[in-house]
């Protein structure tokens, strides 16, 4: 008798009530949402609980949803219970103007580099992180490249035809638009 998604959900709802929400099970992976004030409390509960014991942080990243006002950025945690071999995922939404999330480094040492990477690409400010600086990109980079307002292409190039490379000038009509007749 292993740990089921139903049990995990019941335990979470019993402990945190309405504050954990949006339960889904895409492809059997339990997914839910946690408000950002509670992310450490939920993680600590999942870690400490004798039945749940999610003691392994598989992945930590973020997603940018530019259309969802007030909750543009979502930090995603993937946890793994190594005893029962059960995984779960939860998202912590935050506004892009104030991307402060409590760090998980005190609980999971693996979060150290993953949070640095998430900071590097999405600009999430992990409060309490011991060494929050860029890990993959050059230190001089002035933006967070995975946020959707930044085009993928290198903006410093001038030798390529911008219209052919999805990098149309911000002012003036693009060359790809059909001429007005």
């Amino acid at each position, binding site marked *: 008798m292993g740990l089921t998604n139903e049990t995990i959900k019941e335990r979470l709802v019993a402990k945190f009530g309405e504050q954990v929400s949006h339960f889904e099970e895409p492809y059997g992976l339990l997914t839910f949402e946690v408000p950002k004030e509670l992310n450490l409390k939920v993680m600590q509960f999942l870690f400490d609980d004798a039945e749940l014991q999610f003691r392994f942080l598989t992945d930590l990243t973020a997603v940018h949803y530019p259309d969802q006002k007030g909750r543009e950025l979502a930090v995603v945690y993937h946890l793994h219970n190594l005893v029962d071999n059960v995984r779960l995922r939860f998202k912590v939404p935050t506004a892009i103007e104030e991307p402060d999330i409590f760090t998980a480094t005190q609980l999971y040492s693996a979060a150290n580099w993953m949070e640095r990477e998430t900071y590097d690409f999405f600009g999430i400010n992990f409060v309490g992180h011991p060494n929050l600086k860029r890990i993959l990109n050059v230190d001089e980079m002035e933006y967070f490249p995975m946020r959707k307002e*930044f085009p*993928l292409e*290198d903006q410093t*190039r001038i*030798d390529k035809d911008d219209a052919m490379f999805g990098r149309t000038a911000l002012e003036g009509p693009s060359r790809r638009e059909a001429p007005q007749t």
Partner: protein
Amino acid sequence: MARPVRFNIHPIQADIKDNISMVNAPEGHTGEGFFATQLSSVVGLARKNSLWPLPFATSCCGIEFMSVMASHYDLARFGAERLAFSPRQCDLLMVMGTIAKKMGPILKQVYLQMAEPRWVMAVGACASSGGIFDTYSVLQGIDQVVPVDVYVPGCPPRPEAIIDGFIRIQELVGNESVRRRNSDEYKALLHGYGIQ
């Protein structure tokens, strides 16, 4: 029937008569016991036929370069037998592969460690222009960091193309004036890259 065992005890001797290509002597005046020519052509001749390449291989172009070095294409035929992995001993920096922006300062450091005269060859689309990696993390051509003498196109280039690029480098080396590295243009070029 048992297969006869063969020993290579009577190897066929290679026919080397009229079969070895030699470098021609430069133009000059010959006479009884003397030969006079320009210093630059002698120096160029010596340099171009004993280039020491430094392979800076970061991706698939480096794999092509391996076959260029191996027996099939044999870059050693052009006097580049000795690949050195210390930039201080090398004449030719061969940059093969994608250079990420984070790699840029390292590439420049390697270039700075090479002694003059030094040449640079950008092999492949990525080293020449960033190639398909038109993205925030990739250097859009190594000529943003170091001056480049020869660009080899291709993704990756065939070994023949790399050899062709090498021959172009040899032409540049052979025809270079001995004073070029002291010229104001060259200093201005290096200054443009922030190298004094």
